[in-house]
């Protein structure tokens, strides 16, 4: 009776917005496999002479919008302060070698997932102008999107390698089929670098698997097993190679200029944001989150890589005479900042990194995409020719300015908080690296100001021949 009185007197906790709206135990699988099913269906829909091109675009758009809607419901029900994985799915897959179909998200995962869902919608919108082989284009775009989502939610290293590697093929085909004039070498670079990264990830995974007894690929088992410092260092080095090919980090950045410079805007958005943020996400999961010895020993290396990346990208952007190349180099900057936060190995730095996974991804996608769009609409990529476009492209100008401010992390922009936390965290433990990254960011500001001044707000090009 007393208990009943207490229960009745206790205030009912207010339900979280969206709570109870969606209770599917397969939310993450739906997010991965629905786009795959739609992509395969689109590939086989008869489309004589492009009659249903508009329908194909709409199907792709509403598929991504639908998955984003589901994701937002899932996000609203996500328990922010629970340290455990949520929306977990765990089904034995190949038990004889220890593979499970294990999916799940935690805080950083949900941030990445929201980024991926948001970028999926944006990529379809940015691809609306595609006219050739529309069916194949949107099929491949959905497959690329699904593979990135799969890599984010994978909680089994085998599944992670599967999705990590699976994203290469649709992206390379999108580049070859719909890219700029130097698309084929760009695609081979993408395959080469990302293939190297996938190889490094696979070897690192198998080394972890072997060192932890060779019974399971599940992250819960692999990343919690007690490993010697030597193994941790070896695996950590391999994971850094894998991450560096994706983010990209200097000196494994060779694909970035060509791919981001040649890919169509819709593909640029995916590559520059969610697909490349996977590199930082991997470092967070495997090195910082699970291998304390490797994290402490390799943190100076990570800080150095971050500094070199930001410095190189800023200087290269400053020297570039091609607006798409400038955009590609500038898109490398947020990745460097994210890695700096991870190199700090401090709670504040890591929090900044997690936040910058999202904000940096959006900023990188926006700057690369807007550079591609300006080049496409102005029908030239040369910075020597482009000039005074602000009056003629007001919307693009606004987006360009927002992208620039976001990239630099100025106050009121989402990346401000991320950058502040990252730098505050990093200056304590990696002062040289943090200073170098800050200097690189200052040079990036100069490069951005130069581009903005020349392309948007400078005098219009009066030479009719150009």
């Amino acid at each position: 009776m007393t208990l009943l009185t207490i229960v009745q007197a206790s205030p009912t906790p207010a339900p979280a917005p969206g709570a109870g709206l969606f209770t599917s135990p397969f939310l993450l699988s739906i997010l991965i496999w629905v786009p795959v099913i739609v992509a395969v269906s689109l590939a086989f829909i008869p489309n004589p002479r492009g009659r249903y091109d508009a329908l194909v675009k709409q199907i792709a758009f509403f598929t991504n919008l639908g998955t984003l809607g589901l994701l937002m419901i899932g996000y609203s029900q996500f328990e922010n302060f629970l340290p455990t994985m949520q929306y977990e799915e765990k089904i034995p897959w190949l038990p004889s070698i220890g593979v499970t179909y294990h999916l799940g998200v935690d805080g950083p995962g949900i941030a990445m997932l929201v980024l991926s869902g948001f970028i999926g919608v944006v990529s379809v919108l940015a691809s609306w102008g595609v006219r050739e082989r529309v069916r194949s284009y949107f099929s491949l775009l959905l497959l690329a999107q699904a593979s990135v989502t799969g890599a984010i939610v994978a909680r089994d290293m085998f599944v992670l390698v599967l999705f990590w590697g699976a994203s290469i093929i649709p992206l390379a085909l999108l580049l070859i089929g719909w890219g700029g004039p130097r698309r084929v070498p760009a695609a081979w670079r993408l395959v080469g670098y990302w293939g190297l990264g996938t190889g490094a990830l696979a070897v690192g995974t198998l080394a972890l698997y072997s060192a932890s007894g060779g019974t399971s690929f599940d992250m819960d088992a692999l990343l919690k097993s007690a490993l010697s410092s030597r193994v941790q260092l070896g695996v950590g080095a391999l994971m850094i190679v894998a991450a560096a090919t994706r983010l990209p980090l200097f000196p494994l950045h060779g694909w970035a200029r060509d791919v981001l410079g040649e890919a169509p805007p819709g593909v640029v958005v995916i590559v520059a944001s969610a697909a490349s943020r996977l590199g930082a996400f991997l470092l967070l999961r495997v090195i910082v989150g699970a291998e304390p010895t490797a994290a402490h020993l390799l943190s100076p290396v990570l800080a150095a890589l971050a500094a070199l990346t930001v410095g190189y990208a800023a200087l290269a952007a400053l020297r570039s005479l091609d607006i798409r190349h400038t955009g590609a180099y500038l898109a490398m900057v947020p990745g460097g900042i994210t890695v700096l936060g991870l190199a700090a190995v401090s709670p504040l730095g890591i929090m900044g990194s997690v936040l910058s996974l999202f904000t940096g991804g959006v900023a990188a996608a926006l700057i690369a995409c807007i550079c591609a769009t300006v080049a496409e609409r102005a029908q030239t990529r040369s910075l020597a020719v482009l000039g005074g476009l602000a009056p003629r492209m007001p919307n693009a100008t606004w987006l360009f300015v927002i992208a620039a401010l976001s990239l630099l992390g100025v106050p009121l922009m989402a990346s401000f908080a991320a950058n502040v936390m990252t730098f505050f965290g990093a200056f304590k433990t990696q002062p040289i690296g943090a200073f170098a990254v800050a200097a690189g960011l200052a040079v990036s500001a100069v490069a951005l100001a130069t581009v903005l001044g020349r392309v948007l707000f400078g005098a219009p090009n009066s030479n009719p021949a150009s």
Partner: protein
Amino acid sequence: MTYLVLLPEALVVVTAVAVLIVGRMGWLPVLSRRFLPLVAALVVLVAFGVELWAGAALTTYFGGAMLQDRFALFAKAAVLLIAAVAVASADWPAEDSLHLGVAMPLLAAFGVMVAASAADMVGLWAGLELAAAAAVVLVALRRPDLGLRLLVVGAVATSLVLVGLAFLYASTGNADLSAIHDVLSSRQPTLALAIPTLLLFGGLALRAGLAPFHVGPLPVGLGASPLGAGLLIGLVTVAAATAGIKLLAALTPIPSVYAPYAYVAAALAMVGGGAAALAVRSPRPRMAYLAVGQLGWIAAGLATHYRSGMAASLFLLGASGVAATCGPALLGRAEAGETAIAGLGAVRPVRAAGLALAVLSLAGAPPLAGFFGELAVAAALAQSGNFVLLGLGLLGSVLSVAAAIGTLRVLYIQGPIEEARRGAAAALPAVTALSTAGAVVFSLIIAGYGLFGNPILGLADQGAEALGLR
């Protein structure tokens, strides 16, 4: 009931012989082109069903010369499925002879079944030669010169295998595989055992087209009819690999006599196959080199000489066999190189999808059959600490995937050539209900192999256990 396990073999061989006789006598009606492949595919599917149902019984027959264990069940079921899909998906107008085209894959499948059930060296050799002979017939139909070359290469391979088997018999005093295993359990590895092993596996590698021995049979496959090429690249390789796995299982007590050869051959095949696939542009040679690369992964799994490695190799052999046999069959003529398949995705979507999946699976691209097989082998390599071989394998896979993307670009990104310029060398594959169904089933197998990987890998593991491996 004991002999019910022989029903699949009986069905396959009777069908093949009946088709041969009826075709030779000219009793095939004109309309047979429409139903003969369908009937053959259905008979093989029935045999597949019987194998799965009755093959679970463990038994020996013919006085112990043949045995039915889990290894035989796995290999026989796999090869029956491969044969059925290959016959169904073939581009029959591109074949030189209907009755030989139907009969030879069945005879090759029968050869693999004999090798898989063999309890002694004689059965192994007989099964291998039967599969190889079927390929020679199909190759010689179109290009007698290449048929002769294959015959000579095959003769060299046979000599090496026979000399190796004879030495092995002389060293152990037994032709029975389990007895050889028992004898070797109490022996030390010696040069007298290492030399015949080298000859034996040299012969098998020549048969299978494993690098560097692929220079013999591989060019022959490129001039054959589509199904002939599939037979040579796929089923003969499966026969040689089946014989190799059984012999390796007998030699496992002294792995030092064969493991070094397997390491070297695997490394060469994995990297060389990928690099060669990237270097060529024509789809059939590319597919053949991709198959060589995947064969290297199978050899790498065998080199571990553990049950997990052997099971992974078997698992991959199933995936590789189906893609390597059916891929060229799906490709059709395509004698005009890359141009022949340009834009095939637009004009023959189902066949192009099958072809794309075959190439990607042979390259080990995720999430297809070949990827799961290669990763299972990679896990076995990691467990045994062979990280150098693993690294080389991954390098080969990256090269292979790059090559596969090149073929996908031609299939889907390039536009089809004008019909007026197409000609016989680039003729489009014929569309029939059977070939479409075959391509769909093939695609489902390649895409679903990983999804249903647990029962398949479980059976492969039982197969490795049946060979006496730990």
